[in-house]
Every structure is written in C-alpha cells, then in structure tokens.
C-alpha cells in the first residue's frame, strides 16, 4: 500500500478517528509514515503556540448597534464579484441587463449597418436603483432570440475552440499560487437576438413609476435592433465538484476562484431609428437616473465603446492598460474580488477572488 498522504497525516493529528481501517493498519506498520507524522505534529503544535492571540472581551450588543447605525455609504473595501455568491446573481442579471440596454442606447443608425462594434471599454457608474430599473428590460420591448445561446461545458480547450467556431482559448502563463490549476471549459457558438421596441410596453412601465412617458420620436415604436453576441469561451479555475462528504449540501459547492472569458465583440444593427434619437429617448425614460444618463452621454464615441456598468456602492473602478490597450479594472487588493475587462479585437474578461494586482498579471500573461 502507498504511504499515507501529508493531508491524511495532518488530519490524523486533529482527528485520530478520521483514519480508515486500512490507513490505520498501514500507519501502525510503517516507520516512515510515523516519522512524517511526528514532524507534522511538531509543526502543528508549534504553530498553534505561535498563533496564540490576546484575549477578546466582546460586547456583542453594542457592536450590533454600531453596525446597524453605519451609514449606507460606499464601503471601504466592499466589492463582491457576482460570480462569487448565489445571492449576487440578481445583481449580475442587473449588470447584464444594464450592459445590453446601454449597448442598445448607444447604437442604431439608419439603414442596416453594423452600428455598434466596440473597440474599447469605458466604466459607467450605476447605482442599485439604476440596476433595478434596468433589470426590467422586457418592459421596453420584446427580445427574441433568432439564434439561441447554447453554452456547453466541454472537456478541453480544443473542444471549446471547436464549439466557438475556431476561437482560440486563452492560455494562462501566470497563476497565483492560491488559484487551482484545475480548469473547466465552457463555450458558446454565435447567438443572435432581435429587440423590438414597443411603445405601449414602455408606456406601461412608465405608468408604474408614476411619471409620464416622454414624447416618442417618430418611428421608434416597432424599431428593431439586431444584437449578435459570441462566439465565446469561458475558463473556470477551481474544483467545482460538489463535496462528497456525508453531510454535503448546496453550501458545499465550491465557488470558482478565477474566470477567464473571451467573446467576439457584440455587434448591434438597426433598421429604423438613429442612434441619437434612441439614446435621447431611452435616457429620458423614468427610472433612468440623471447620473447614469449624463455618464452615458459623456462617452465620446458610443458606437465603438463598450460601457462597463460599475455599481458605485460596491465597487471601485480604474482605467488600466492591458497588453497595450485600454481596459477597466474593478475591485481592489483585498483578495476578495477583482476583475479586468478589455477589448483587443475580442472582448476579454479576467475575474476572480484574487487581488487586482494578480488579476492584471494574469491578464498580461494570457496568450491568445
């Protein structure tokens, strides 16, 4: 029988009953494993002594009052990547909706031409209220998939490349030691959707806010915007398998440590309305805050700029250079979460529960 692993021996120090019968029999007869255990136990006892801490005297009730009285201002480090927790998914959905709507806002010219082919990225501050209002995209029209997105989990980078119409899967040359090198690949072929603007639906949505609908520009009712997304490849680092322990629950599912995504830049085309008309109209709808509207209007070249919504209460953003092109970095160096997005032909995203420094090093090291 093979010798006991370091992990098994270390666990034995904390819980002697954790050994299986065969492990125990091996250990009793193996002087090598006993010697290794002795060294590990010595380290474990020494570290327990080293990490002794001064006594804590807590007043939990007073602490609770202080926390409850904390103003709802921007937290000092607070940033939580949507991928990191199930409860954040509504926010992620909001961000996705915001991205789509913002893309729609800044696109559309007469004729059927590619109106929106982003070549660079720009952060746009949004509030939770903005996200909540934007998440109801269906209030403003109907989104119909003419080619439905069909994301698939695949076994290898080569499989991902096949699914994603030959797109090369990015390869990492640098990974922090805290990130597992186990990669799960997902890929998606191109998808296409048509968003048909519906004035009646928009009027209903406006009525719910209690504010009148702004005057409709001619021709906007029924205007169609065609949105093409993908193909795309997503690489998820970390062991995503569910725990096999007897008391496993949904809580045991491991969260990804790092996600790297590559997608063709989205392309939007329109048949009826001009970009300026559509932008002005949507930005004047009730529910779109003046702050978001002015931030979108401030973008110099909306037809080539992908806007990255940044929830100002939770995340800080900064402009960075990745591989010589402009990018937007989110998060900080606490290690809780950071992300960077840039466009170099395709759209690239690196995000994970690592520091911003590491996210940027990973991004710089990608071979595409």
């Amino acid at each position, binding site marked *: 029988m093979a010798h006991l*692993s*370091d*992990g*098994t*021996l*270390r*666990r034995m120090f904390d819980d002697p009953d954790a050994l299986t019968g065969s492990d125990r029999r091996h250990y009793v007869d193996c002087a090598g494993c006993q010697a290794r255990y002795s060294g590990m136990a010595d*380290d*474990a006892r*020494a*570290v327990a002594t*080293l*990490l*002794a*801490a*001064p*006594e*804590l*005297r*807590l007043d*939990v009730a007073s*602490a*609770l009052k*202080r*926390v409850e009285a*904390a103003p*709802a201002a921007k*937290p*000092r*480090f*607070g940033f*939580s990547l949507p991928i990191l*927790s*199930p*409860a*954040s998914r509504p926010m992620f959905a909001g961000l996705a909706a915001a991205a789509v709507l913002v893309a729609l806002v800044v696109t559309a010219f007469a004729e059927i031409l590619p109106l929106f082919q982003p070549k660079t990225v720009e952060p746009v501050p949004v509030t939770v209220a903005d996200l909540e209002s934007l998440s109801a995209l269906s209030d403003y029209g109907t989104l119909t998939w003419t080619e439905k997105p069909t994301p698939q989990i695949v076994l290898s980078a080569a499989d991902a490349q096949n699914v994603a119409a030959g797109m090369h899967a990015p390869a990492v040359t640098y990974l*922090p*030691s*805290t990130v597992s090198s186990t990669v799960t690949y997902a890929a998606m072929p191109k998808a296409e959707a048509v968003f048909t603007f519906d004035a009646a639906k928009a009027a209903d949505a406006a009525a719910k806010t209690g504010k009148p609908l702004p005057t409709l520009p001619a021709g906007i009712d029924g205007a169609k915007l065609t949105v093409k997304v993908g193909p795309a490849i997503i690489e998820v680092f*970390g*062991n995503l*398998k569910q*725990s*096999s*322990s007897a008391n496993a*629950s*949904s*809580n*045991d599912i*491991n*969260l*990804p*440590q790092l996600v790297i995504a590559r997608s063709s830049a989205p392309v939007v085309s329109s048949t009826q309305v001009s970009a300026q008309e559509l932008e002005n109209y949507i930005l004047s709808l009730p529910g779109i805050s003046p702050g978001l509207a002015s931030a979108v209007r401030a973008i110099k070249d909306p037809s080539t700029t992908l806007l990255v919504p940044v929830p100002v*209460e*939770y995340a800080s953003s900064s402009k960075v250079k990745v591989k010589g092109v402009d990018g937007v970095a989110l998060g900080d160096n*606490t*290690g*809780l979460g950071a992300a960077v997005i840039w466009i170099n032909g395709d759209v690239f995203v690196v995000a994970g*529960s690592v*520091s911003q420094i590491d996210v940027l090093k990973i991004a710089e090291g990608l071979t595409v």
Partner: protein
Amino acid sequence: MKSRDEAFEALFKSEYARVAGIANRVLADSHEAEDVAQEVFINFHRLHSANAQFAPAWLHRAAAHTALNRLRGRRRREKRELAQAPGEAERTVDPQRMLEVNEDRRLVRAALARLAPKPAAVLVLRASGLSYAEVGQALGVGTGQIGTMLRRAEAALRKEVTRGTSL
C-alpha cells in the same frame, strides 16, 4: 422566514464572536479585530441577505482576508503591540516576559503577512476553531484538501518565523 433585520441580528449574534476571533488571531489586537469584524458585517449587510446559506462562510473568509490585508499594510505594528495586547500573558507574568510575548507576536504576525493569502487564511481559520468543512467552505476548496493545505502552511509559517528571527 425572519424579516431582514431579524435575520441579520440572529446572524450577527451567532457569528460575531467567531468573526472577531478570526481577525484577532491575525492581528493579535482586540480593538483592531473588532474594527475588522464590524467592517465585515457592514459590508455583508450591504451586499447580501442574512438568510443566505453561504453567510457564515462569506463572513469567515472576509474576516481572514480583511485582517490579513490590514496586517500586510500595517506600518506601526510594533509600536501598537508594545502599547496594547493586554492578553493572557499580561495578567500572569512579569513585564520582561510580557515584552518577550509581544516581540514573539510581532515576529509571528510579520511571518504570517509574508505567506500567500490562502495558506495564511487556512492557518488562521483553523486556529480560530473552524472545522475542516467550515475552512473549506470559507475558502472555496474541498474539505479533503484542507489537511494538505494546513500541513504546507504550517511548515511555511515555521520557516518564515525562523527566517524572521535570523534576520
């Protein structure tokens, strides 16, 4: 289902001591540990529902990372430790011994700050009394990996402490 406020209060009462304990294990400073614990809860309250299943794991992870981050950024550590850290040693030993304890703590925390984030977090979470399963949940790794991670982290910390004392 409890209301949002009731759920948060229940979560706070059940986890505050442990969150503060994790921070204290890292910082060896009860006042700063409480600061970190409150910061962690404030951020959790803004971001998530207290009814979320992952709430304890999130809090433990955030406590470890936030405290480790503070430790790394700390520049006035030595001064503060000499002025504070009224721990178990203070009440039972003489001033010379207390100075030695404080110096040991400073060296150990400096060594901890030099470890990579995940090994450092494994050490402090386990030393704070979390089970292997709880440490795994907090760090997003399988319970089966914790023994190996602990082993490596303990060896690394001892090495760093030795290096620190020989400098």
